[in-house]
């Protein structure tokens, strides 16, 4: 690898697995059973219980989970799904997979970059089939207000909980406010295993559809046939291969045991970051100190007050060995979405996308590294 491609000294995220995590995967591999079997079922049961949802269906990614959740909400060609633009592209792309049009709504402010229920309300049309709320960075959006808004109009509320496992709003877990929640286990996430996702729901119908479509709408799986419970199968719909596999389920099950401890570390580091960053001029630190306790603290976003400094500050931090990222470029500004859905103006979202920087955060980050990040940021901002 050329020297210019050197890894950052302080990466955006870092994953350290415990010996018991590795053992769980090794045991699964040695068992020789690699697809949708007892470990997936056990992980789903444990995750559902920890979340307080009736059903959990493990899938290949959060993108897959969103696709299945929208399908379960009845989203189809000609429908509209209201989503934030200040999110990862999958939130909108999954609506396009269903043949629907994503309708982008504003965030509240740079101080609270979560979906704005009032703007959502303004964008509801007779074609609106679902609203997807994203709990950005692990902090609860107004799922309660959105739930009332959607219920009153017979619209499905879907939660994109990719950032927010075990986070809460008013004591209730995120992912349990809507018809279905979509979680991510991507490698940089709070509960990460590489690629993976999950649909949670209290609805038996949603669960049945997600389970069926996850594996090609086949009426029995390899595991049932292996156990002699089923002889053959029918195909009863248009399904997909959105299965996860057993080594990933084993790793998830093992890591689930460490989730609360990891989140506690993230919260402590986030509170410390907030204290340090409060001393700096020229930045907004989104959300309030009081929000940290209910957050999964997936990432540490800041907004640079002045416009047009994002690339410069990011480059300066990179020179200091510190990796940052942008969570997120606005979806409605991407070429693919402008071409298909036209030009649109969302000033708060666009400003947030132009000024946001995501700072390094991971459970085992040291205070010394945090101090380095904050010092380098102060220096970069002062230039």
């Amino acid at each position, binding site marked *: 690898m050329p020297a210019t491609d050197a890894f950052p000294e302080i990466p955006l995220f870092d994953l350290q697995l415990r010996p018991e995590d590795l053992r769980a995967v090794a045991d699964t591999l040695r068992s020789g059973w690699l697809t949708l079997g007892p470990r997936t079922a056990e992980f789903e049961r444990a995750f559902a219980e920890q979340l307080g949802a009736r059903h959990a269906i493990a899938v290949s990614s959060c993108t897959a989970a969103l696709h299945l959740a929208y399908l379960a909400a009845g989203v189809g060609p000609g429908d509209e799904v209201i989503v934030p633009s200040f999110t990862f592209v999958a939130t909108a792309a999954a609506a396009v997979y269903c043949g629907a049009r994503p309708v982008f709504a504003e965030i509240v402010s740079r101080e609270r970059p979560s979906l704005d229920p009032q703007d959502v309300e303004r964008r509801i049309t007779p074609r609106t089939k679902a609203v997807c709320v994203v709990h950005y960075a692990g902090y609860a959006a107004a799922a309660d207000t959105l739930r009332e808004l959607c219920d009153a109009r017979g619209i499905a509320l879907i939660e994109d909980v990719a950032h927010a496992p075990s986070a809460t709003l008013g004591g209730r877990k995120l992912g349990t406010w809507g018809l279905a929640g979509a979680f991510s286990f*991507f490698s940089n996430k709070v509960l990460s295993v590489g690629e993976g996702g999950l649909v949670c729901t209290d609805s038996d119908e949603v669960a049945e559809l997600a389970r069926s479509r996850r594996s*090609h709408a086949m009426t029995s799986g390899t595991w049932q046939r292996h156990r002699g419970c089923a002889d053959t199968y029918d*195909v009863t719909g248009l399904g997909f291969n959105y299965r996860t596999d057993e080594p990933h389920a084993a790793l998830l099950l093992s890591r689930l045991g460490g989730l609360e401890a990891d989140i506690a570390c993230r919260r402590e580091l986030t509170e410390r970051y907030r204290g340090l960053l409060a001393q700096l001029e020229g930045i907004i630190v989104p959300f309030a100190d009081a929000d940290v306790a209910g957050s999964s603290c997936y990432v540490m976003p800041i907004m640079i007050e002045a416009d047009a400094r994002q690339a410069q500050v990011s480059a300066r931090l*990179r020179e200091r060995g510190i990796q940052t990222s942008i969570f997120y470029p606005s979806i409605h500004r991407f070429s693919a979405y402008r071409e298909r859905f036209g030009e649109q103006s969302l000033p708060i979202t666009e400003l947030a996308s132009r000024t946001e920087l995501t700072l390094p955060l991971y459970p085992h980050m040291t205070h010394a590294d945090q101090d380095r990040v904050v010092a380098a940021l102060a220096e970069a901002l002062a230039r």
Partner: protein
Amino acid sequence: MTGWRVPLTDIAMAEQDVQAVLDCLQSGWLTMGPRTQAFEQVLADYVGTPHAVAVSSGTAALHLALLAGGIGPGEEVIVPAFTFVASAAAARYVGAEPVLCDVHAANDFNIDPDDAARAITPRTRAIVVVHMCGYPADVEALRGLCDEHGLLLIEDCAQAIGAHVGSYSRQVGTIGDIGAFSFFSKKQLCVGEGGMVATADERLAARVRLLRSHAMTSGTWDRHRGHDPSYDVVDIGFNYRLDEPRAALGLSRLARLAEGIDNRRALVRAYRERLASLPGLELAFDELAVERSSHFGFPVLLRDRDARDRFREALKAQGIQTTWYPALHTFSEYRNRTPSGSLPHATQAAERHCVLPLSSTMDERALDVVVEAVRGALASA
């Protein structure tokens, strides 16, 4: 856990496979990194294709193949009726209509190029050729047919990695415009869930790479290495990425793939020799096909559906696990998608066949058990 004396198939995990995955997990880098790149390179060399793109499944590979090929709404894709449902579902993902055609014969499960030719309409854009059970289909005839009509030829190699194609002395997946492979847990090369797209066309490979990861102009790995911190999204893409632990496992197991296929072929030859003259049982495919096949499964034929079902019951009673593949036009979801209304060979093949146990590490002793049980099952039928 299960009472099978001989399971349908079995995965033997070598200790170096387990270690490869553990090393990857300990590295802490789990997505689209150096292991995926290495796996793609070694796969490309093995298959003999200029470009290999690792994806999340064989289904994803077919979907991306059709998308990259520009197939869309209102168009038709010809698919054999005797295949796994993904071969047809992928056409529907892109808004196209799968048109089912027949296979050669009850004892040759592969697409009949003449019937495929009859299914061509002005809306036809592609033919999906499936190499069933690992036996190479007549891709040479289909290549000619597709060239003549300006159609895309997609090879569904989900069951056939390492199989050879007729006079080309090349591997399956390199004759069509794109090849789609599967690394599902029952396959010759298995990682749990996984797949690959192979193509000689640089433009198609670039499209597949782009659409595999949400059509983003830069990936996590690039950003980790300090490249452009932002990105554009230039199409409606998907999350069809393979992750690093799976790539590590695939890379480790690929070293023993050829040996595994050789063992499968030796077992199939032993099976054929010992089952050849049994009354009431017919072998599928011929010796040349056996030579070229990579032997995902070993199918035999019974007289009719009833005889097949009784045969399977008798084997099950002996602790022998078997399976059979339904034809697509018998599924509720695909019942009304056959233009001619009848697909006699696919129907016969599906109703009469039974797949016997076979794996890369199965031994002669297990084969003896199956052969004895087969004799018994036929005698009591």
